């Protein structure tokens, strides 16, 4: 278990780290050693304990037991200040940047160097220049953060850590918001950093990234560090099995599509967001019965707004949505459900579920007026619980307890609650947004199979996902969205490069 990450001496060592949250054992006796000047990947399903471990390393939590050693010396990391002092820098999944500050101001923030800014600014500018030449991190120091593309914002986060003297960089799911090209650029930067002697810990659930960039990799499962491997000596299949604890199918098997008549049709749809910015720009497409249409795109290119408009949540500015050839006008979500449109929303925490509700209460959200759940204005709780228990059994929702608060289910099981509710209604059309975001591999397989079954049953499925692999393996046709427009349509065998270029707005 205590396999040394590289021939070099370890930059960071965790010895017997143990952490409990009440009855939840988040980290069980974790031992980890990361070699100096290496890139070490940590993978694991959601809830495996990766984030807890990194939070302990960065001083957000304190381990109940165990020791952290940095460059061989035991250290106590009481808070993030102490972590920074120990040379640990963290790049969070969600950036911690002040949007209307410049790059330079963000980098300096918290390390201004005195009451008057002028001296600090000059010093920071010089230091930034040095970091830029040393590591190839080119960002205009005077650009405003909000005007930078996401990939560059991430570079600013890395610069911030380096500016504070970080020797060990932790990156938490860094590619979630990047285009494939931006991700490649990030990897090149990480390689330069490693070659310059920095140590990098990369937390991800994308096996492809682990294989592409890391030197060594550790797998976490249910709070335990189950394996550490040299990347060159392992395979994607082995890692996936280690993560889940059993064999998994990474590719979904599906037969040929058998498209029927057009069920859902979108004509010249334009949607604006709350600030009045056009997010969906004159989009038209059809979805037929028995096919899955995938919408690919980097997050923030209008997919979310498109999905919300189709679900009746957001009012389009112009254009038409037709169901079965009839315009639905300004129908609200309830009326659209009546027409047979089910919706698995992108954000299950804020839309798909009421986390404070018990499971059975969520199993009828949006369908609570169904006479099956009580006549007139009364709710028949026995009927609701019975149907919830049926869904729990059919979708293997764990723990199988309809009276448990929804917040206490894992991400995968929460998503299954939503999927069960929407699919069990036998809708004619299904809108699916990020069906497997924050969902573990076992549940991903399950959810993908249900979506394919819907297609087999002659339903029209529209799938929005930022996971290109997911789009490619499920869709019969792929529409690529960029800056609010559909920039092209491909079949499911389109190669990743082509789609990646289209997602980046470079027409193919």
């Amino acid at each position, binding site marked *: 278990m205590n396999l040394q990450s590289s021939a070099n001496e370890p930059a960071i060592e965790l010895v017997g780290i143990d952490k409990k*949250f009440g*009855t939840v054992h988040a980290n069980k006796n974790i031992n980890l050693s990361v070699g100096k000047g290496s890139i070490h990947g940590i993978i694991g399903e959601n809830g495996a304990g990766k984030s807890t471990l990194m939070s302990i390393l960065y001083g957000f939590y304190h381990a109940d037991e165990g020791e952290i050693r940095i460059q061989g010396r035991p250290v106590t990391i009481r808070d993030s200040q102490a972590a920074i002092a120990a040379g640990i820098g963290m790049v969070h999944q969600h950036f911690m940047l002040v949007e209307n500050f410049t790059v330079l101001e963000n980098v300096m923030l918290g390390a201004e160097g005195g009451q008057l800014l002028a001296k600090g600014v000059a010093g920071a500018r010089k230091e930034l220049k040095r970091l830029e030449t040393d590591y190839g991190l080119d960002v205009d120091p005077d650009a405003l953060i909000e005007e930078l593309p996401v990939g560059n914002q991430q570079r600013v986060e890395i610069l911030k850590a380096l500016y504070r003297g970080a020797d060990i960089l932790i990156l938490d799911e860094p590619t979630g918001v990047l285009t494939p090209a931006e991700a490649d650029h990030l990897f090149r930067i990480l390689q330069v950093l490693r070659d310059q002697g920095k140590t990098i810990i990369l937390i991800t659930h994308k096996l492809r990234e682990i294989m592409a960039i890391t030197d060594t990799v550790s797998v976490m499962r249910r709070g335990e560090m189950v394996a550490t491997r040299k990347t060159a000596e392992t395979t994607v299949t082995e890692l996936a099995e280690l993560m889940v604890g059993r064999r998994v199918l990474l590719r979904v098997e599906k037969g040929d599509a058998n498209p029927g008549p057009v069920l859902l049709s979108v004509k010249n749809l334009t949607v604006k967001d709350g600030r009045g910015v056009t997010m969906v720009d004159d989009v038209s497409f059809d979805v037929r019965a028995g096919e899955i249409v995938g919408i690919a795109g980097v997050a923030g290119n209008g997919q979310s707004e498109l999905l919300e408009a189709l679900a009746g949540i957001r009012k389009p500015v112009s254009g038409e949505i037709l169901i079965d050839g009839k315009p639905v006008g300004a129908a609200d979500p309830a009326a659209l459900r009546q027409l047979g449109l089910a919706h698995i929303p992108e954000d299950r925490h804020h839309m798909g579920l*009421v986390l404070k509700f018990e499971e059975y209460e969520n199993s009828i959200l*949006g369908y*609570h007026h169904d006479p099956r759940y009580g006549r007139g204005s009364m709710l028949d709780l026995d009927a609701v619980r019975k149907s919830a228990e049926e869904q729990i059994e059919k979708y293997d929702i764990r723990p199988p307890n309809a009276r448990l608060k929804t917040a*206490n289910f894992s991400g995968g099981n929460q998503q299954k609650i939503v999927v069960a509710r929407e699919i069990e209604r036998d809708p004619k059309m299904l809108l699916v947004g990020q069906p497997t975001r924050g969902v573990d591999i076992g549940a991903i397989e399950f959810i993908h199979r249900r979506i394919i079954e819907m297609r087999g049953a002659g339903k029209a499925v529209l799938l929005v996902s930022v996971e290109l692999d997911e789009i490619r393996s499920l869709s019969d046709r792929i529409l690529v969205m960029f800056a609010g427009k559909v920039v092209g349509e491909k079949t499911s065998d389109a190669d990743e490069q082509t789609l990646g270029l289209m997602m980046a707005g470079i027409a193919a």
Partner: protein
Amino acid sequence: MSTASVPLPAWINYGVIPLLNLILAFLFSGLVVWAIGENPLEALNFLIQGALGRGDAIGFTLFYATSFIFTGLSVAVAFHAGLFNIGSEGQAYVGGLGAALVALSLDHYVPWYVTMPFAVVGAALFGAAWAFIPAWLQAKRGSHIVITTIMFNFIGAALMVYLLVNVFIVPGKMAPETRTFLAGGQLPKLDWLMALFGLKLGPAPFNVSFIIALVMCYLVWLLIWRTKLGYEMRTLGISPTAAVYAGIPYVRTVIIAMLISGGLAGMMSLNAVMGASARLQVEFVAGAGFVGIAVSLMGRSHPVGIVLAAILFGILYQGGADLSFEMPNITRDMIVVIQGLVIFFAGALEYMLRPAMVRLYQTATGK
């Protein structure tokens, strides 16, 4: 952080923790009493005796509790829909107008039990009407309900004073109040109920509206946890985005929740106007609307909790009045301090003891 997600059994959550909070509140109140040179134990004795020692004391305690149950339910219903109704005070005040109009019109002709259902409807309608404008402004225009309901308390108070001074005043009298209702416009006392327990009600105005309040508790429970409307209100209250997703109509749900809330507040006037003074007077609500906020908070917006919290505040009101009579050093203001401490510990510091209880519970159960 780490103990917040650990579930505790209901008897600890709803039994032990509130009780400990209450004990803490009394300990600190004791310190205050001691600091002004009185004996805390003696003071506590006066308070308890004054609230529960005699039949009429209990009668007064339950009379106050009745008002607090109505206003507590009013705040709770709005709260379940995510609305903080600070306007129960004003809605109760205007509700009194509805009750009084019914009593004044019918008391010559019919006995009280015929007047009562009309009075219930009248009080509720007027209370609801006073909640409607803030509700509409919130639902349609996004004006914050806290601000508008506070303002409507003042508008309501001014309106009522105007009506009492200029319209309802009995000619030739100085007091700004309506004429005294005849027996047909009064709610009878519950002396028979007290007699069942061998107690004499005496002059205490404990009346039939207590039973109406308990019926409302049941109806509110039914509404919140057993109807589709209640389900929609709770969804909206916890997660407005999930409510949009589920197609729950925001405007309609907000307005209905506020109408029910205002109606319940309005019914408080049955107790004060028709049950006690038998006439509509200025300022008859006397802060019961605001106490309702504390009662709802302490009772976790659940009817059972609200009844218990309302009785506690009834004890503080009645016992406090007796205490300040027996110990002149402890003024009415000191009683308000003690009430404040109860709200502070039981409401605002609700979760202060939770982490310690979680640790105790875990050690005890060996987990």
